């Protein structure tokens, strides 16, 4: 079932948590709400669940307007950040809770719970208390509990936030597979872009209660809509310069910039990802900035180079392949020439 969010706003006292959010979650989709702390992503999730009531706007499940429907009647599964497992109930009874309150017959409850415990590979943990489980196990029980009553919608609030890196990695893949087999419309909240990109087939970037961009992971990463998205998704070098008549001026550097053909000069911020900068031992004819090598971390799949521009107060991060780095033969203290392969220019808001 698809979820539609129309013009939803929510305030807590003076602070605005959601500011006119409109969003479509396709039926059977797996969407990640991504944003920094305070961006309103958790509030949006709770509004979708009915745990918060929006001040304005409406929420639709399929064709049905559920804005005023209490959470308990929405038939959804919600996984809380810290799981909110019932401390006084066993794993079995936690998973069975939704079935018990729906007065399922005992036999069907047993059947369904065993099925779910098998799904999360915790068949033998039925009699345990939540306090006797590891973080990853609690997480899986919380998921099984949310799925027990075959919800139409599954919502997860920072589902892997409280786990170790390695457990997190495995649970992501597991969630992906689970979603594939169950096919339930799923929305998850995360502040970790890697997690969002790995799990979701659609990513929604939120900032200060607004949707900055929504789309497939690759699309968002390759074509960021604005400087916030660019900045939030991965490392980036920021240059401040000006654009004039389709050309970009950065200190002594001049590069073509065909997207901005305005005649009059404008201040602009230029964003270049570390892997989109190239580095060379001497000037090679392309527009380039001379800079001094400060530090190199050659370990790993890429060599990370930190440089300081010779002119102006600017530090640069460049990523090249280790082979290329070795081929250059540069050392800390040497002067190198940095040239952008690709740059994204964002004009400040007031200029638009």
């Amino acid at each position, binding site marked *: 079932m698809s979820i539609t969010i129309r013009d939803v706003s929510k305030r807590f006292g003076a*602070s605005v948590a959601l500011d006119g959010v409109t969003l479509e979650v396709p039926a059977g989709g797996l969407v990640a709400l991504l944003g920094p702390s305070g961006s309103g992503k958790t*509030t949006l999730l709770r509004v979708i669940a009915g745990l918060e009531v929006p001040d304005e706007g409406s929420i639709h499940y399929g064709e049905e307007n559920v804005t005023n429907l209490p959470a*308990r009647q929405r038939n959804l*599964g919600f996984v*809380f950040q810290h799981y909110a497992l019932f401390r006084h109930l066993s794993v079995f009874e936690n998973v069975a809770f*939704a079935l018990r309150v729906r007065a399922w017959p005992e036999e069907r409850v047993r059947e369904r719970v065993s099925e779910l415990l*098998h799904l999360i*590979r915790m068949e033998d943990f039925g009699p345990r208390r939540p306090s006797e489980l590891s973080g990853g*196990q609690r997480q899986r029980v919380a998921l099984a509990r949310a799925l027990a009553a075959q919800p139409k919608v599954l919502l997860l609030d920072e589902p892997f936030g409280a786990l170790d890196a390695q457990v997190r990695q495995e649970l992501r893949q597991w969630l992906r597979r689970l979603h594939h087999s169950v096919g339930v419309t799923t929305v998850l909240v995360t502040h970790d872009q890697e997690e969002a990109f790995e799990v979701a087939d659609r990513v929604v970037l939120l900032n200060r209660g607004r949707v900055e961009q929504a789309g497939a992971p690759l699309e968002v990463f390759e074509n960021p809509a604005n400087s916030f998205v660019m900045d939030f998704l991965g490392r980036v070098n920021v240059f401040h310069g000006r654009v004039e008549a389709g050309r970009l001026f950065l200190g002594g550097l001049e590069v073509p910039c065909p997207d901005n053909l305005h005649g009059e000069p404008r201040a602009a911020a230029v964003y270049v990802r570390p892997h989109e900068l190239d580095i060379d031992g001497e000037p090679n004819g392309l527009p380039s900035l001379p800079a001094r090598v400060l530090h190199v971390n050659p370990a790993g799949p890429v060599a990370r180079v930190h440089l300081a521009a010779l002119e102006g107060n600017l530090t640069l991060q460049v990523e090249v392949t280790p082979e290329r780095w070795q081929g250059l033969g540069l050392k800390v203290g040497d002067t190198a020439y940095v040239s952008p392969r690709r740059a994204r220019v964002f004009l400040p808001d007031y200029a638009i």
Partner: protein
Amino acid sequence: MQLDAPPAELPPAAVPARPARSAPTERRTRAPTSARQDPAVVRWGLTLAAVAVLGVLVVVPVVHVFWEALADGPAVYWNNLVRDPATRHALALTLTVVPIAVGLNLVFGVAVAWAVARFRFPGRSLLVTLIDLPFSVSPVVAGLVFVLLFGPRQGIFGPWLYAHGIKVLFATPGIILVTCFVTLPFVARELIPVLEADGPEEELAALTLGASGWQMFWRVTLPNIKWGVLYGVLLCTARAAGEFGAVHVVSGRITGKTDTLPLRVEKLLQEYRTPAAFAVASVLTSLALVTLGAKAWLERAEASSLLTPDPSAPRGERSKERKDEAA
């Protein structure tokens, strides 16, 4: 489809042998290092002094009650307790008043704790102050205010009630009312911090799983606050059974009619029946000792039921994080 067992998480036993200094059950103050150790003279001197204080203040009086009660032998003690119809009636009255007062305050305590701990509304802190008010009112004043309301001649409602044959003052209803008043805060005060510390997550989880309000209350809220409830009921019962001043004022102290057990102690003393007074007092003292035992037991039971090996989700901090998220 299954999930492989998570390899990164070692069982708790495999954690490297670092001193478990802040395990939840262990009181860190119990293992003094030399820098924290007081000289033996100081230690033993202070310990002896403290034991002496507790001895004179608490132990001697308790022993004294039973000593005096049994001064004339167990047979007399027994007669003093069961052969006196006025004492028997006082016991019956106390056994009537206490459950009613505790029951009413239990319902109130749960209701007000839910409203105060789970919602924000104007006048909330005033409400919390009001709950505590009976603690700071002298029992005699508590009795007095009910006399002003229900006094048969001068009270506000008294004359009307009297004309319609309803006796509040100098009768059981008045005793129940003042007992409710003086013990009103106990359950609420226990439950408000418990509910606040837990946060609403589990209840919200129950709602998303389709539970109705009552199902949520009986299946999730109540099991989580049960220790607080038991605690509050225990303290409330002890205080209700022992209340003297307020009942003294509103009961009229009619022997065999409106005397509760504590009032019976005073009456017997005034009648120069000291052993009988101590016999009744010994019953009340036993009740107090049982209360202390039950309290100690509850504290232990609660501590062992709260033993959570994984501290990754500390109670009380969850809601704080959400607040940051909303800000």
